[in-house]
């Protein structure tokens, strides 16, 4: 067990928050508008509640093994083979998340900035910084999230400047179609809140473990404030009849911002947003390499990482995904993510609690 470098509170909060925001930021107003109309912003509160419940479960679970990640926990309670299966499942899950992240990032770039570049070239570009940093573990990832947060401070100000054209009446009346659309849209809030599962691996490296729960709540709250802000801004800018037409309302708003010194801010915004996108690939690829290293048992994580990067690149060369497929994958990830990050920790926690109660003890 190599020594793990400590992660501070701020880094912890920002790793989780940036993981959650990075891809879902662009799609959340569209999804909520298409399924819940102008009352979609209330769904965010429900999503927050669900994520908080799950955070409590995860922290309680990890309290049983404060110095090792979920894989070692499972190994202690159920044996080596179950741990290998768990490692395999997590590996596939994070591979899916990383693939989804690369896909969306390169599709957005292809659509808005560089239409004629091949997608696998874009993915190759994106894999270079991933490889550079993901080999160094969560401490480097935490520092990266800090810097990305600092660099992204200007984005909210630009969005707030569009409020001068806001039509607040679009939000009224509240609950115009009743509660049903809101409740049925909660499932679309799962994907934006994925990231709490990182704690299953991140917990042992946290410096103040007692503050883990408040930290998770803070990061969920931060994420939801950002979502709420962007959703409200989209809703008051676009009329309810037209918002369903736009595929990326978040970026389309940027298109209409006019400054004196720069014409089309959204070009800079999208290029810059790659920084925020990277906050989902990097932890995912790191966890993929870590799970596969513990699965195979030998080999440094760096080499596993290199192998997986090459695998992803080859998969983009062989199969070029389209925007429609990315939407389908997002839908699927809602369900998969629910199982992995919401249902699975509950299951493991129940199992561990029952084992402890029955006096089963810990197997080495």
């Amino acid at each position, binding site marked *: 067990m190599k020594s793990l470098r400590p992660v501070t509170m701020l880094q912890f909060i920002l790793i989780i928050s940036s993981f959650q925001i990075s891809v879902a930021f662009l799609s959340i107003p569209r999804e909520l508008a298409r399924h819940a109309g102008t009352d979609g912003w209330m769904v965010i509160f429900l999503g927050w509640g669900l994520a908080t419940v799950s955070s409590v479960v995860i922290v309680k679970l990890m309290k049983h093994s404060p110095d090792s990640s979920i894989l070692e926990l499972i190994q202690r309670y159920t044996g080596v083979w179950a741990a290998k299966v768990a490692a395999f499942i997590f590996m596939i899950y994070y591979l899916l998340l990383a693939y989804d992240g690369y896909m969306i990032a390169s599709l957005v770039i292809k659509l808005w900035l560089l239409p004629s570049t091949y997608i696998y070239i874009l993915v190759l570009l994106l894999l270079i910084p991933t490889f550079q940093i993901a080999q160094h573990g969560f401490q*480097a990832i935490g*520092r990266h999230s800090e810097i990305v947060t600092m660099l992204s401070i200007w984005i909210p100000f630009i969005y707030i400047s569009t409020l001068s054209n806001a039509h607040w009446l679009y939000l009224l009346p509240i609950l115009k179609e009743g509660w049903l659309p809101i409740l049925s849209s909660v499932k679309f809030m799962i994907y934006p809140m994925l990231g709490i599962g990182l704690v299953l691996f991140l917990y042992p490296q946290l410096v103040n473990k007692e503050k883990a729960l408040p930290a998770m709540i803070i990061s969920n709250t931060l994420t939801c404030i950002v979502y709420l802000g962007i959703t409200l801004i989209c809703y008051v800018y676009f009329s309810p009849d037209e918002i369903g037409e736009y595929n990326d309302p978040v970026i389309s708003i940027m298109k209409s911002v006019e400054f004196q010194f720069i014409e089309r801010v959204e070009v800079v915004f999208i290029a810059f947003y790659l920084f925020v996108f*990277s906050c989902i690939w990097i932890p995912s690829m790191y966890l993929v390499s870590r799970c596969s290293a513990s699965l195979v048992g030998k080999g440094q994580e760096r080499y596993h990482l290199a192998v997986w990067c090459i695998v992803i690149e080859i998969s983009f060369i062989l199969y070029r995904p389209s925007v429609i497929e990315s939407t389908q994958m997002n839908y699927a990830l809602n369900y998969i993510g629910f199982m992995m990050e919401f249902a699975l920790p509950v299951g493991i926690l129940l199992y561990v609690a029952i084992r402890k109660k029955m006096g089963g003890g810990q197997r080495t």
Partner: protein
Amino acid sequence: MDEHSATNTKEENITKSLNESIGRIEEIFTNTPDLIIRKLCIKQTGEPAAIIYMEELTDKASLNQNVLAPLQLETGNPSGDFITTVGYVKPHSTWEELRLSIILGYSVLFIDGRSTAYALDTKGFPQRAIEDPQQEPSLKGAHQGFIETGSQNIAMIRRYIADKELKVKRYIVGQRGQTPVSLLYLEDVTQPDIIKALEERIQSIDVDTIINTGELAEFIEDQPLALLPQMITTERPDTAASQILQGRCVIVVDGSPSVLVAPATFMSFFQTVDDYSSRWSISSFLRMLRIFAFFIAIFLPGFFIAVISFHFEIIPLKLLLTLGESRGQVPFPPFVEAIIMEITLEMLREAGVRLPAPVGQTVGIVGGIVIGQAVVQAGLISNVMVIVVAFTAISSFIIPNQDMMAAVRIMRFMMMILASWFGFVGLVIGMMSFIIRLITLNSLGNSYSTPIAPFRAMDWKDTLLRVPLWMMNNRPVSTKSRQSIRQGKSRGWKEKK
């Protein structure tokens, strides 16, 4: 060790016979016409003796007055031994040590009948007077810079820190050079791990000699292949002293006017000594300007190429028309144009360094104004590109540290290449790679990018802003110093009211 010496001297002892010793000296030092052997008779004891010294490494006045005169003229020493009025006298009994002493400039006294020889300190090699440091001039600070003698440099630092905790550890590095390398630190402040690591690294160097501090830096740095420097090089004693007080170590190399400061963080390369002697508002402004200039110097040409080639829709309309017009006449694509201008500028810079001062200024004017103007009028380069390149050059000159400036010059080319291939996306990837490099570099175990990441709020007092001095009560957290309070009430008179 033995591979480097020409002759195979064993640990031999000196014989009592004077003539043998002199014969031995002549054997060792063949083809050395500046070795002087002066035979004399000591008046006090009446023994025949010989003084052996290197002609230009000796301070002749001191030798004559403090050694030769008392030895030959004075009697009256109650202990009955020879008299010299030199400060430093060290007895040696092996040829190894003697050989070293002679070469280092000591004069050696052989006395017939004794098996020890005495090394007397009459060193007086040519050295420079203390002048304004060339590379780091300052407006308000002291105008003295380090010179090439290590002991003088240490003395200059001691003048700033009159503390008994200032320790000096001395190592000899280099087989043929025998360069004294000194490590200075505050014992109760500096983290012992840092001292141990530095000591280990210095002592494991196995080379002929170290001519400059830069070579030493390359041997003991964590990642010498990286573009960014991980140790600060400075020529100013006040900078070195303030770095020691912050909890860092200073390495003085004899023969080189720059000293090394380790460990360093990225932000420490943007701090100059003037920041602390000027008022805080102007210092903060200049600090922010420097950091801004750093990023401009790396990214501006790339940004310009990306905008012109890929994303010209972001240019405001009026600028678009003038830009299009000026680019319409140029035969080269923007990337080639930028490379031509950048290479020309780098050549001008190098040429300016080689030329003596008065000619250098003329070349600067000729190169800058005439060539730039002529090139634009001939239609080879657009005038906007000249502006961009000139602005970039000015921004890179603002960076206080030479190594960092050099890193900037190279990174700029990489960004230009990426921008010309992939536009903004390439530029962002380049930026990401740069930031990741910053994050993952470690200078002696300390992270390079503190206090930005990991975020240490206390250290931000001296990063972008320079808060008033009375607020900086602790040493920077990044140096992990053992004793971190460095001032109490620095404006105590205010509270007495």
